[in-house]
């Protein structure tokens, strides 16, 4: 296989080896090894493309796997290197030439090929996870069951019900939006989804949810299954095209960042690239949309019932979508007392399914975040991404910190309820 097809060679040339990305890279912070830094990883990718390094080298895959794909390096890179795209293509290249062990291969096939493509499977998985957690079976599974033991309990079936196809606006109708229900969001964070609908409809937007849609393909793309990701992207685009031209509201930062980049993912097919670009232009993160549309009667309603809040930037919101001010703005507008979280743009170690694949690295990355939260003096941590949400819940519990973790939408829903008691 032509080694230049195993990485995005052209993009790798943008790096001029200045090193300004080293300090903020969480994996470089852990090991101090150049090869686990953005610059080092790009150097290795470039070496693969130039035939100096075989993509079959196990250490090459290890350093790519070790990366959290947090894209912090992009935010500090003066040369504009698009690391997120580089890591996706390099991982996909490795999958082409390296065979993983039997267990890992099977898990990937079931995970990406089956579960993340079917609502029935997702729902069944969630139910069995809950069962394993509640009965203690997860503990008996030993190492395999560890992620289950450590994560927050999967909510009961009643909380995992689908969102209605259409929820009418409350009060005067100002417009219409479409909303991504999400694969994991629905199974794990139904309450956040419902809060999202409550706020959107509460500020006057009829909310449509394409029925039967499962997954945007972000997890596939981040983990080297670009073909699977493309298939799901096409499906997503089609289903949302059917809802018209309304903005597509996303309350999961990882999905939003990915859906905003469909044109790149589908770049090899002109017609789909075009449709992808049109679709991406509609995608808005929840707080990005609400910050622009928030009505005045919201202002200052929240007292200190949620305690002092602090907001942690999900990587794929700040580095992936450049959305930084809006979540803070909406939190403050609704009257919440907010303090800054030191180093809020540093990765929390969740990184999609990373926390399950590499639990030790994930925890090591989280340790700094816990310290930052402690020093902030806040009682509630606010985030905007399901992975981060779980990571914070389980991480703070593990570190013995008593705190509440909420999605921005949940805070706004609380404020709304207070502003307009039913």
């Amino acid at each position, binding site marked *: 296989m032509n080694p230049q097809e195993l990485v995005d060679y052209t993009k790798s040339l943008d790096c001029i080896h*200045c*090193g300004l990305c080293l300090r903020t890279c969480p994996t*470089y912070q852990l090991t*101090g*090894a150049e090869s686990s830094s953005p610059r080092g990883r790009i150097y290795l990718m470039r*070496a693969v493309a130039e035939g100096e390094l075989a993509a079959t080298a196990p250490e090459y895959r290890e350093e790519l796997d070790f990366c959290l794909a947090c894209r912090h390096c992009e935010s*500090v890179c*003066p*040369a504009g290197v698009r690391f997120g795209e580089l890591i996706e293509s390099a991982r996909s290249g490795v999958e082409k030439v390296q065979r993983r062990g039997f267990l890992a291969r099977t898990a990937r096939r079931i995970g990406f090929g089956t579960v993340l493509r079917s609502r029935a499977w997702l729902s069944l998985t969630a139910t069995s996870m809950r069962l394993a957690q509640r009965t203690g079976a997860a503990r008996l599974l030993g190492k395999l069951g560890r992620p289950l033991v450590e994560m927050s309990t999967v909510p009961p079936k009643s909380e995992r019900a689908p969102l209605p196809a259409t929820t009418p606006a409350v009060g005067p109708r100002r417009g219409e939006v479409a909303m991504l229900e999400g694969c994991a969001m629905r199974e794990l964070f139904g309450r956040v989804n419902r809060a999202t609908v409550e706020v959107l409809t509460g500020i006057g937007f009829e909310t449509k949810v394409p029925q039967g849609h499962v997954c945007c393909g972000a997890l596939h793309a981040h983990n080297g299954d670009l073909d699977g990701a493309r298939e799901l992207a096409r499906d997503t685009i089609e289903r949302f095209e059917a809802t018209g031209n309304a903005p597509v509201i996303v309350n999961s930062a990882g999905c939003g960042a990915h859906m905003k980049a469909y044109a790149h993912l589908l770049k090899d097919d002109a017609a789909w690239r075009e449709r992808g670009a049109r679709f991406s232009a509609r995608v808005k993160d929840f707080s990005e949309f609400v910050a622009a549309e928030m009505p005045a009667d919201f202002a200052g309603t929240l007292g200190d019932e949620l305690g002092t809040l602090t907001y942690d930037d999900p990587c794929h919101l700040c580095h992936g979508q450049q959305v930084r001010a809006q979540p803070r703005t909406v939190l403050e507008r609704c009257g919440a007392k907010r303090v800054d979280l030191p180093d809020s743009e540093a990765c929390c170690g969740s990184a999609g399914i990373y926390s399950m694949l590499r639990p030790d690295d994930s925890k090591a990355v989280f340790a700094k975040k816990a310290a930052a939260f402690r020093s902030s003096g806040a009682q509630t941590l606010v985030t905007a991404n399901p992975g981060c949400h779980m990571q914070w819940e389980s991480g703070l519990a593990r570190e013995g910190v008593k705190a509440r973790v909420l999605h921005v939408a949940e805070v706004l829903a609380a404020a709304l309820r207070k502003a307009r008691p039913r």
Partner: protein
Amino acid sequence: MRAGVLEELRAALGPAGVIADPTRLLAYECDGLALLRQKPAVVLLPRNTEECARAMRILHREKIPVVGRGAGTGLSGGATPVDGGALVGFARMRDVLEVNVADRYARVQAGVVNVDLTLAVEKHGLFYAPDPSSQAACTIGGNVGENSGGPHCFKHGATTRHILGLVIVRDDGSVLDLALPRPDPDGFDLVGLFVGSEGMFGLATEVTVRLVPTPPVTETFLAIFTDLDAACDAVSDSIAAHLEPSALEILDRLTIEAVEDSVFAAGYPREAEAVLLVEAEGTEVEVEATLAPMKAIALRRGAIDVRRARSAAERKKLWAGRKGAFGAMGRIAPDLYVADVVVPRTKLRELVAQSTRIARERRLKLANVFHAGDGNLHPNISYDRRDKDEVRRVLEASDEIMKVVVAAGGSLTGEHGVGLEKQEFMSLVFEERDLHAMCRVREAWDPAHLLNPGKLIPVHACREMRGTERPK
């Protein structure tokens, strides 16, 4: 490497402290000067002085050459490995060991990143003055190695003025403890001698640095020129007028465009041919006394506009743009060659023009961004290292620039060091006698030439000296 040595090193540093697989070693082939590459035999990452000393004892016994590496942002090949040698990296030595607010100094491990030092002390109203543009990445140890400068060194002086003490692991693994801050050391000033030694005298594991009080007032303005020469002349005038702003930087059009296209977009006007970035600090009266005449000079030299930063955030942005400038050039071509020369400040205009001509004659793209106040020019040449002929032309241009600078009374390096890059040019500025003297100083520290061998001093000079002056 002899069998068993790796195991011995692993026992000394722990498994994560030794990198020996060919894939990971590849990532250490070069520093910020990507033109020159050499894979090391092994990379060692000690966590403290003791581990570093242990490793050095083993390497010394085995006669394995050693190159020190901070963040590998150096631009002269100082951290380029040597064939068959070890690289000792300081990326796991990142602790601030002590901050003494009353006596205004801090003790840090060598791998602390420059900006982290300032972040650690700013709450005490102090800062660490030398601020290389790479400060978000480069380490204090690397700054010591290169005697680095930065925009604010115009007023505060380069690294050497801020290093009060060092702990040095010597070639044989013995530890020389000079950590106590002494304003006037007994005997020779070994600390002063060590700063700028480019890893050839030993490895600094701990550094005691001077901290400076944060000035009460800092003001920054941007003078906008439609002509690069005029901006240079404004700087020459302000030097002649004995003005002392804390920083005086020039960015030319190509640089402005690159920065404005990057994540560090600072709001430099794209229509300008050059901008002059001026900062002054001190009391309100002092700042005014500097900035008012500066402004007058800029306008007299034809500046079309002078804009003052209105807030701390705006000031920060102006500086982030300046500091991201090298990196932003990466948007123009895959590789960047950053030259570093110092010229007499009365000849700024002339030498900027000469280097532009030299590049143009060789069909190369050259951008200028420089510490104008210090006369420290950085002609940046963008190229593609896969184009062998272009690489040749870049090297030729850099030679030519150095020659005209030396002929005009300037010097080879302002702050990036000699390293591998400028080694052979040392003979342009030093006589054999002087080079021999340097060799002898070096041999006092490292008689076996195991520390960063083949750098800084031209190879012939040392060889000759060994042949003629050192009886066996």
